[in-house]
């Protein structure tokens, strides 16, 4: 059991031991870091290729189409074909563009997207650095993406790009708050900001009810809120206003072509994977099995299975929901998401203080459902059609 579970950890130790004979002592930390980082740099772009294939196939089937089926068996080589196409395309920079910022934006996006993987635990003992403030690190580095999106949109000197960038920044700022607040509940219950510690707090107990945080009233609400906010942070449908192909063509990357466009694409998907992995870590028990019985399956298999399930959910919602309007988006963020996450924080605190027993289940579930239906009713009422008033066009 532990042999397969710790396969990659053992492999790294073995490689490190072999290197120790050849390289000087001072190089050891560097080699150790490289051995941790390089697998990430290989696995996640591969997952990106797989995800693109899965997404196109899944969306196709949702729309009663075949999806890609020409390149390779079942269209499996489609991502490779896309990549080659992106590589050999002409790289166009608009004449009026701000060249340095225009070049910097995609590079920064991919760099930061890769950086956040440093704190995510992919399996037992499989984390690059166990930062004490790991969750904070994740969000701190993740916020750079907002600035990058703005840089891309502004430097292109294109009105659609600028519109897209403004939309993206407004949206990401609005949904950053519920994203962070929904994770605060987990921090409160687990009592730590370190992601490996949070996973340990969800170790399977002997009881019949799994110890994952999603199987609690505040955890279930928090997970749903987290997924919605993550969806908006990743600019995916139904929150894809910044890209809105039918309105502002491609938003902030309208002026990007060839490999820079591919980099943006890669960066977007990498941050989607990162935020999904964070969701798995925080709410779905990370690399833990739901029961002790399930622990014979290697921890990293559990982790990637859960990650793929969350990604499938993202594809499913993308195939279902139409794009929101800007005012609906903002209403939803400020009138539903933020109050709901704040109430959820209070519910988590109650959960902590009431202590174990059926009472806390009853109280917390009632509070979650009550808050949801109240806020939901308010939102539905706000969404009714009203005569439009023009204030500045008179």
């Amino acid at each position, binding site marked *: 059991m532990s042999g397969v579970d710790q396969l990659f950890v053992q492999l790294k130790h073995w490689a490190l031991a072999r290197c120790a004979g050849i390289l000087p002592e001072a190089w050891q930390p560097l080699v150790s870091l490289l051995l941790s980082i390089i697998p990430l740099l290989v696995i996640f772009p591969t997952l990106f290729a797989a995800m693109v294939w899965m997404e196109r196939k899944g969306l196709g089937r949702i729309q009663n189409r075949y999806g890609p089926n020409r390149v390779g068996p079942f269209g499996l080589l489609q991502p490779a074909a896309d990549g080659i196409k992106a590589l050999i395309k002409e790289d166009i920079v608009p004449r009026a563009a701000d060249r340095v*910022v225009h070049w910097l934006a995609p590079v920064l996006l991919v760099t930061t997207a890769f950086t956040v993987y440093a704190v995510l635990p992919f399996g037992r003992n499989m984390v690059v650095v166990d930062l004490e*403030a790991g969750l904070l690190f994740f969000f701190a580095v993740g916020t750079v993406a907002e*600035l990058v999106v*703005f840089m891309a949109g502004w430097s292109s000197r294109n009105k659609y790009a600028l519109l897209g960038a403004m939309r993206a920044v407004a949206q990401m700022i609005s949904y950053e708050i519920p994203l962070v607040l929904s994770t605060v509940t987990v921090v409160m219950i687990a009592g730590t900001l370190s992601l490996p510690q949070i996973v340990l707090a969800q170790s399977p107990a002997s009881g019949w009810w799994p110890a994952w945080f999603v199987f609690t009233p505040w955890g279930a609400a928090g997970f749903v809120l987290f997924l919605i906010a993550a969806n908006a942070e990743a600019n995916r449908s139904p929150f894809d206003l910044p890209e809105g192909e039918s309105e502002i063509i491609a938003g902030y990357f309208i002026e990007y072509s060839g490999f820079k466009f591919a980099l943006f694409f890669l960066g977007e998907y990498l941050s989607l994977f990162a935020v999904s992995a964070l969701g798995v870590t925080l709410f779905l028990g990370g690399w833990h099995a739901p029961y002790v019985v399930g622990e014979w399956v290697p921890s990293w298999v559990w982790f990637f299975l859960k990650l793929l399930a969350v990604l499938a959910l993202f594809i499913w919602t993308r195939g279902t929901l139409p794009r929101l309007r800007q005012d609906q988006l903002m209403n939803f963020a400020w009138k539903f998401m933020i109050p709901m996450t704040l109430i959820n924080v209070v519910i988590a605190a109650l959960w902590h203080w009431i202590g174990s027993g059926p009472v806390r289940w009853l109280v917390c579930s009632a509070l979650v459902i009550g808050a949801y239906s109240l806020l939901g009713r308010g939102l539905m009422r706000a969404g009714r059609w009203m005569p439009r008033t023009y*204030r500045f066009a008179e």
Partner: protein
Amino acid sequence: MVTGPFLILAALILVGAVAAVRMRNLVHCVLAVAVVFVGLAAAYLQLGAQFVGWAQMLIYVGAVAILLVFAVLLTRGGEVPERALFSPGWHWGVTIGAAVFALLAWAIRQSPAAHPPPAAPVQVTVEQIGTALMTHDVLALEVTGLLLTAALIGAVIIAMNDGGPQ
């Protein structure tokens, strides 16, 4: 405390600060300010203050820099100004600034508080910060919270007045 990494960070912060003042394009200035924020966060991290460093990054790069960007774009400050960047008497300002800095630096160097006995470096955990904020420094926290709430309510009121029927 003057080590290699510190020197690099200091250079980065200073270059960013000068660029933020000297650049002609306001958006470039904002980006330079963001670089300064990142440099400051790195400086905190280098001093072993993980929580402060990441919080600096989260709040200043993620919120303050974005706010600046919004302010620049919504006020049409994005256009490059035609006239000279500095007023004619700029060297007077520099002279006075340098004089004030020299005086303050001299005063601080003379003060006995500037030379404390070297303390052993402590590893401050996030938990300790949280406990301190909730017990010893709770007043400061509450006052800050009150201030931010007031600001929030003010913002909401401004936005509300804007939308009413005329």
